[in-house]
């Protein structure tokens, strides 16, 4: 089976891209699908959430600049089938150059070619539509867009969709929208509820995933402990199960794509 390469991107920052990438990657691996989560953000959010403070490791930056091999940079986890490729250490003054490098086909292309044994590669893009995001969209098969359940995030959705449409028209005609995921939903906040209601009203069920990720202190705690949220309770924290439900939705959606039917999304309940 071909690798599904998913660019997780958003124009707005702080919407939960890294949370989505890491926890979805874990869920897919737990469901038996070999997955690599690749960090394209030179802020090293993924590595920062998993490593002890002050510790760095080589990653994508070192791979694309040729100082280490992919095998040396790829981090195997204790979860069978889940690997991580952190961004590596990027000097802040070189961040723009790193992004430019990723924007070129020869930047991410060879890395993804080497990962073609994986069922999924999730690319955690930096916010905005800089070179790294454009590079990821250029080599991805699908785009997954998190929407923070707050008003400003809604405004940014159109921008990232327009970017995706532009990349599809000019560079990657096979790029598909996998869907939109509502993140950080706070049902006690009127504004958050309004955003969710607007999204439910206007986006088709085949576009907007049923699974909604709430705003919950457990995500902050997970980040503090440097683990995916599923690891925050014995067995599995219920929020981890939430990402498994999202993973199941994604798998069903991809299965429908394969048989050429874009039917209505399956029910969450």
């Amino acid at each position, binding site marked *: 089976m071909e690798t599904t390469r998913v660019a997780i991107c958003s124009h707005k920052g702080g919407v939960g891209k890294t949370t989505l990438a890491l926890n979805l990657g874990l869920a897919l691996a737990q469901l038996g699908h070999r997955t690599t989560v690749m960090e394209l953000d030179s802020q090293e959010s993924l590595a920062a959430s998993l490593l002890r403070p002050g510790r760095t490791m080589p990653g994508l930056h070192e791979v694309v600049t040729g100082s280490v091999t992919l095998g040396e940079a790829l981090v195997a986890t204790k979860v069978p089938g889940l690997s991580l490729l952190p961004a590596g250490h990027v000097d802040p003054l070189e961040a723009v150059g790193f992004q430019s490098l990723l924007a070129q086909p020869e930047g991410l292309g060879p890395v993804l070619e080497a990962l073609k044994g994986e069922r999924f590669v999730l690319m955690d893009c930096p916010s905005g539509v800089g070179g790294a995001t454009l590079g990821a969209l250029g080599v991805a098969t699908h785009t997954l867009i998190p929407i923070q359940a707050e008003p400003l995030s809604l405004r940014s959705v159109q921008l990232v969709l327009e970017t995706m449409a532009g990349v599809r028209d000019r560079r990657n005609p096979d790029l598909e929208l996998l869907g939109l995921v509502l993140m950080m939903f706070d049902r006690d906040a009127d504004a958050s509820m309004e955003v969710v209601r607007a*999204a439910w009203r206007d986006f088709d069920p085949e576009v907007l995933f049923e699974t*909604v990720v709430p705003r919950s202190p457990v995500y902050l705690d997970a980040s503090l402990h440097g683990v995916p949220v599923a690891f925050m309770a014995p067995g599995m924290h219920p929020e981890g199960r939430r990402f498994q439900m999202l993973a199941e939705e994604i798998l069903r959606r991809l299965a429908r794509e394969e048989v050429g039917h874009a039917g209505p999304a399956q029910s969450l309940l």
Partner: protein
Amino acid sequence: MPVQHRAYFELGVAAELTRRLRGTQAAPTVAGRAAAPSPTALAPEPQPAPPAPAPAPAAVAGSSGLGTFHTPEARYAEELWEALLRWLKEGLDAEGVFAMDQHGFSIAGVGSEPFVPPEVMLAAFTSMTQLLDAYLGEGQPVRKVEFTAEDRSPMALFHFSWTGQTILVGVSGGRRLGAEEFAGVAAVMERELEAFSVKRNQAEGDVG
């Protein structure tokens, strides 16, 4: 009444872009989620007419104790929904009964309004079912969630699937309806909706 702030909530252009990028068209759902309200928005999308079904039994299967449901001469789906919910309300001596789709949008309602906004109920229902599913595991699905408040009648929310959609039915006050008993009610609703759908599609075919 929620206040619409600025233009953040105008997602028409973005929604159209998603359809283009996802390769889908706007499709009305049971509650007409993606379509403007219309007399038939509550009915499912027209399908090729299947073979005529067996006549729907008029009474609830099992021991629901709700008595016979008399199929109305409904021309629009709203009329059927109203009859179904009124039958449920009277059978349970409830204060109010309502139905909504899987996104929290109202399909129909009779009697008193729910004291919890439908969106909040849906969010709570979804959270509860997800959490309980995570703890209970497969094979023990949650069918009912009850909402209580000190000075209000308790309200129960049930769900059933019809044509791939999840329909949620809420009951406030009155006799409590068990999850198993609700299965009988859901069966009647499914049969009536299906029969109505077939009848409507045949009528449209005749016109076409």
